[in-house]
């Protein structure tokens, strides 16, 4: 009887100790395990394959492929372009990110209506194809380090504009990007928030998108990521491929210099 009680007490103490050791970790540990499980297979692969096919496929009113599209390193070059975007393009005289540049190519090479496509909602029609293309192009730079150019005057101007947008407090809740992403080690509910005013680390923030989102089963490019941030900030709607989204992306991209791209990532 005495022995039994002793054993019980010991087991109880052990249980308590292990519970105490585990307790503060359980929530984030569980999430980490969930994320590790997700790595087993990333449905982004499917979008990647679709994107590669679309690149080579004759499409649009001009029945042409995208193989002559210049994403910054010359027509047809797709390896390594992603980690240098957004950048200035002399032909359009604009700073462009991957998605707005693909939009330009789909318009000039294939004859798609640029304005019409930009107006199309995410996840619909040609927007889906654009996301698949962006996923594939990004995947072709997987493992490379971000290294955006700041040599052109307009790239410098866009960095400064992007910084101002990042700190722009507005909307019904006075939120700016910095409200959530301006400090180290913060959370919203249980979600860790990267500090985006500096390089947040390999595969974090800008270096993770496009990404497949398990929670809604959707593939999101950076444009949609920023769009949903703005929605949650209670801002009005940022136009697809608008200068504000490109400048903000450039600011995040320049800050991520040296971060290894893991795009397309998989997210909860």
């Amino acid at each position, binding site marked *: 009887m005495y022995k039994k009680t002793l054993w019980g007490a010991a087991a109880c103490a052990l249980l308590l100790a292990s519970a105490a050791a585990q307790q503060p970790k359980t929530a984030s540990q569980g999430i980490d395990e969930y994320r590790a499980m997700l790595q087993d297979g990333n449905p982004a692969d499917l979008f990647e394959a679709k994107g590669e096919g679309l690149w080579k496929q004759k499409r649009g009113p001009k029945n042409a492929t995208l193989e002559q599209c210049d994403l910054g390193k010359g027509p047809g070059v797709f390896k390594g372009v992603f980690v240098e975007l957004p950048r200035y393009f002399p032909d359009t005289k604009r700073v462009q990110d991957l998605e707005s540049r693909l939009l330009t190519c789909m318009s000039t090479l294939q004859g798609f209506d640029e304005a019409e496509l930009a107006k199309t909602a995410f996840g619909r029609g040609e927007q889906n194809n654009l996301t698949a293309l962006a996923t594939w192009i990004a995947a072709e730079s997987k493992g490379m380090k971000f290294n955006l150019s700041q040599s052109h005057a307009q790239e410098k101007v866009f960095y400064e504009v992007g910084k101002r947008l990042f700190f722009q407090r507005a909307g019904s809740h006075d939120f700016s990007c910095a409200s959530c992403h301006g400090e180290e080690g913060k959370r919203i*509910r249980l979600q860790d928030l990267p500090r985006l005013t500096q390089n947040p680390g390999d595969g974090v923030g800008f270096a993770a998108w496009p990404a497949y989102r398990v929670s809604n089963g959707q593939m999101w490019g950076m444009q949609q990521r920023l769009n949903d941030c703005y929605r949650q900030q209670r801002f*009005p709607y940022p136009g697809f491929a608008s200068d504000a*989204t490109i400048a903000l992306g450039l600011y995040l991209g320049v800050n991520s210099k040296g971060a290894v791209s893991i795009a397309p990532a998989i997210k909860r």
Partner: protein
Amino acid sequence: MNKSIKKWAVTAAAGLLLAGCASLPSSAELDSLTQTIVKASFRTEGQALVERVTAVDDTNRLCSQADVAGKPLDEKVAKAIEESNFKAIKWPADGKFLGDWKQGEAIAQSGRGLTWTDPAKSANGGNCYNCHKMAPQEISFGTLGPSLYQYGKLRGVSDPNSPASKPIVEYTWGKIWNSKAYNACSNMPRAGHAGILTEDQVRHIVALLLDPNSPVNK
């Protein structure tokens, strides 16, 4: 209208580029270019009107500028912002500051409202748990704001209706109604001032924080 703004944006950008080949445009020029780009890039969607970014008040404008500069606001400017926000606080018409903490808990949990996907008529949440620890039963809380666990207890509030509790009760109401009245560039939304929460909802949140029976104070 939209087209002319776009044209203007491009012209402004080009002008700045020509002017600033050797060096960057001035900070003021970059501010104005940013505003031009904001006007051209955002549009109204649902209840999220474009004015939310084009008609920003002085509080947000000045705090954003300070954030960009990486320097805190000048003390006098900060004081002026706090005073004007304090004056704008609407105190409870009937003098009743505390509502029902149970309803307050539900409001604190909800992060709904005022996005372009929220129905305009739906009730808004307070978003409290997104940033604050409150009742200990809720382990999914954010850390952007300070912990509010035992908010009333730590401040010695055993009877919120007592004269001794009055200053803290009023401060709590004021802080929720208009956070910028006490800290010019606080990260916290101005729940009452901005029309996020109604007077009744603020009452319930105050109760959640100060009612001795609220789980926050257990």
